[in-house]
């Protein structure tokens, strides 16, 4: 048993307490019934899982998926040229990289709030547009799916740039020279050589962005308003306002199952983290 190994024992104990035991409890709760005053009680039931098939929740799942997918795609499209720029910027690579990482290191919450500040009806964006007479009434930029996607892209762009940069940096320049030698123009080289070779980085970035986006809570809460209820908000709700722990538990497991499936599908040999 790993407990005999002094290096692994503390981690093993902590993982058991903070990860495995809680998950076990969640599994148990998902099979129980909600208590009258919150909490759980018998009887055992699978109602919490059958309830997941209700179209009401189906809409929420699909919407969360859609938002996460769009956000991930945007991160990829926006992040790739940036990563390329940094990888090819020569001696100032580290500086440019830090400029991307710096905002990431500061508070995610604050960065989400920044968009609240910018997009509200009396915010900067609307003020400027009105001042330029492009619009007369303020646009409802906040409290919709678009704002959520924007907030997600803003928050997770560095997560995409970093693995892309790492892969691009390790790219052997002589491969690109070989392509040019064989007649490929810059765009062809990009599409036929660079992009395929970046596949591991793209996979890593996509996973690093999509999975958290799928389970996002803060962004949809602050930027989406009451109209945008995603899986994350739904789960949080069950454990607080609605006091329906068993259903919250089954939702959590559903979310985790989706994440696991995606990760499993995306994994390749030799790319393990742990």
């Amino acid at each position, binding site marked *: 048993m790993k407990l005999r190994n002094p290096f692994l024992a503390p981690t093993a104990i902590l993982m058991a307490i903070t990860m495995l035991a809680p998950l076990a409890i969640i599994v148990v709760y998902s099979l129980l019934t909600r208590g009258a005053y919150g909490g759980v009680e018998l009887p055992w039931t699978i109602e919490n899982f059958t309830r997941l098939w209700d179209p009401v929740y189906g809409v929420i799942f699909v919407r969360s998926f859609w938002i996460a997918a769009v956000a991930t795609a945007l991160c990829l499209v926006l992040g790739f040229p940036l990563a390329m720029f940094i990888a090819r910027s020569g001696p100032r690579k580290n500086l440019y990289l830090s*400029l991307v990482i710096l905002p990431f*290191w*500061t508070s995610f919450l604050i960065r989400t709030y920044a968009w609240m500040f910018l997009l509200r009806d009396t915010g900067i964006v609307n003020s400027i547009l009105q001042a330029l007479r492009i619009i007369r009434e303020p646009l409802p930029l906040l409290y919709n799916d678009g704002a959520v996607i924007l907030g997600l892209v*803003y928050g997770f762009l560095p997560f995409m740039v970093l693995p892309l940069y790492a892969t691009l940096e390790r790219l052997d320049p002589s491969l690109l020279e070989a392509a040019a030698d064989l007649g490929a123009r810059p765009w062809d080289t990009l599409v036929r050589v660079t992009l395929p070779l970046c596949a591991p980085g793209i996979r890593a970035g996509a996973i690093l962005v999509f999975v958290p986006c799928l389970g996002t809570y803060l962004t949809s809460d602050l930027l989406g308003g009451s109209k945008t209820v995603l899986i994350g908000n739904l789960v949080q709700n069950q454990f607080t306002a609605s006091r329906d722990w068993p259903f919250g538990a089954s939702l959590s497991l559903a979310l985790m199952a989706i994440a696991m499936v995606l990760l499993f599908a995306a994994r390749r040999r030799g790319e393990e983290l742990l």
Partner: protein
Amino acid sequence: MKRGLAIYAVFAYAFLHVPLLILAVFSFNASRFSVWQGFSLQWYRAVATDENLIESSLNSLIIAIVATAAATIIGTLAAYGLWKRGSAWLSGSLYLSLVTPEIVTGASLLALFQWIFRFAHLRLGMHTVILAHVGFSLAYVVVVVLARLRTFDPVLEEAALDLGATEFGAFWRVTLPYLAPAIAAAAMLALTVSIDDYVITSLVAGVDSQTLPMVIYAMARRGVNPALNAVSTLVVFGLGMLIMLSERLRRT
């Protein structure tokens, strides 16, 4: 293409940094509207005298430092142990902790604590938050340190043993110095993740252990507030300085 990339990069960096800059600029605005009406430090004064803010900031700091210290030490040891001899279930649980959505981690920890509190006379508080933070920071530390370990040639430890060091002596005198930059990076990562966490903390904190993100969230929920701009600017600036300082230290 290089020219095009450079132009694009300017816009990309602007996208990343301008929102925060605007936030900062308007924290000095004399009025609470998004129209500039003069320079003022009144919001900063309000922040400096807000007891709630100060207390929660202190809480956040204490939690972050304790959790980071614990997670870094325990995580480094774990990375070393895993490098020497893998453990599928330990690697698996660490991986699980990385990919589990925060909301699920938080909710499940809350469920665990509530269940335990039926038997023990305890409540939610700083201790539960710290425990939660150590729990989710561990995986980050292990990933960073393990990545560095994978570039370490094991023959160096053999050489140390050959020259008379015990297994622990070899680890302490040869491997650990090699890992130092990664350990520092891991500690920074754990620190920022801990200071910034809202979702998990909000679920497992007690009534009297508010953290800074919780206060910020409550303020943001109520709508835009220049005092919040001031807080944000302070936090971003403070953390930014911390990062740059640690980067500079790391380079020496």
